[in-house]
């Protein structure tokens, strides 16, 4: 076998092995999207009921709570960034990081200091490499988050927002995550969790044509709100984590699908080249044989005379 042909054969082998791996990853990701979507759907009843309850207390009572009132001049804001633990998911993590950078710039231009909290190894690595300050970070569960993870994340954030901003607390709480729109579309979005903008919530329920009844609060509106809001934050974070997980799998599936397609194309063009090389080799061999034979024939013809 000619040297050229051997090189092509070896490359085809290597690409075929890669293709097998990317194909497997694509299929695993595809099956996980469905699971993740199911989890998002399963968490929905709790989230909607909780939002309804929060709206009911906030609109149905005159209770003033630090978590629903906007500070006159907010000076610090916390940003929770949700990225993935593992790579090979196309632009998934970098899109979320970029969205966080944009939010950070916007907040800075409004004169707010930004405290960063990160979920996922990719975000931690990005901030670590640039030696930026990270308040807190969590890793190891981004592809399958549990409610306990959301609780763990929410605890320091709620503690920070309940503290006065002069003592190192924050006035606002933002979250940056990748919203799962459909199998093909996932958007990195930023969202302000707290203080709760009640107008927005009220508008949403008004759009649904829902009239909120006058609730009787047990034990009191303030106590209910006190108990509700941390749960509300946890549920929002949980929902964001679940959507981010679904988006991560969708992004990985897409990235792996294009990798598989590219490997297929590469194999095709390489085997064309290999065929051409083999053909060239054969042609050369034939012409060598024919040339040799005719030279031999010429020689014997000459000696006969």
């Amino acid at each position, binding site marked *: 076998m000619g040297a050229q042909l051997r090189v092509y054969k070896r490359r085809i082998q290597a690409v075929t092995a890669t293709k097998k791996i990317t194909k497997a990853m694509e299929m695993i990701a595809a099956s996980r999207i469905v699971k993740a979507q199911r989890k998002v759907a399963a968490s929905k009843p*709790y989230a909607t*009921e909780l939002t309804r*309850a929060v709206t*009911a207390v906030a609109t149905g009572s005159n209770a003033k709570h630090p978590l629903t009132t906007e500070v006159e001049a907010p000076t610090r804001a916390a940003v929770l960034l949700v990225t993935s633990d593992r790579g090979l998911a196309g632009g998934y993590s970098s899109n979320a990081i970029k969205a966080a950078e944009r939010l950070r710039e916007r907040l800075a231009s409004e004169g707010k200091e930004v405290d960063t909290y990160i979920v996922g190894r990719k975000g931690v690595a990005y901030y670590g490499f640039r030696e930026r300050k990270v308040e807190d970070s969590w890793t190891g569960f981004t592809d399958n988050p549990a409610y306990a993870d959301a609780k763990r994340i929410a605890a320091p954030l709620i503690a920070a927002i309940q503290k006065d901003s002069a003592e190192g607390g924050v006035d606002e709480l933002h979250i940056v995550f990748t919203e799962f729109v459909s199998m093909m579309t996932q958007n990195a979005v930023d969202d302000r969790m707290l203080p709760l903008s009640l107008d927005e919530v009220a508008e949403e329920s008004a759009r649904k044509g829902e009239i909120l*009844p006058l609730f009787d609060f047990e034990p009191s509106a303030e*106590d209910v709100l006190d108990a509700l809001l941390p749960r509300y934050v946890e549920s929002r974070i949980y929902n964001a984590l679940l959507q981010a997980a679904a988006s991560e799998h969708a992004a990985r599936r897409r990235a792996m699908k294009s990798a598989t397609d590219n490997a297929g194309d590469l194999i095709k063009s390489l085997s064309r080249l290999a065929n051409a090389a083999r053909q060239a080799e054969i042609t050369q061999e034939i012409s060598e044989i024919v040339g040799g034979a005719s030279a031999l024939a010429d020689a014997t013809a000459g000696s006969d005379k």
Partner: protein
Amino acid sequence: MAAELHVELVAADRSVWSGEATLVVARTTSGDIGIMPGHQPLLGVLESGPVTIRTSEGGTVIAAVHGGFISFADNKLSLLAEIVELADEIDVQRAERALERAKAETDAAAERRAEIRLRAVAVR
């Protein structure tokens, strides 16, 4: 037919039980509360403890609820909690083991959880 109210028992990551009921008894921070159809709109904070739902078919559903909220409006009752376990789902032996372990490790939160589980089973 007696009046009914619609009950949704919802945990953070799943919907546990839903159906029609004639009476729901739950423990709020200010005491046990029984809700029957036509109750006035209510929003309360739940204590950890068993919740009893008397279904319109005459059966009883008991669940261990670990913290959460109760909200009632328009004859619709929602029970929200981070963790909800139906009494039928609770493994008594496991709960007992968990209680012993929690006592040995003096883990107050885990001990309380296990106790509530056992209490819910006892009511059953």
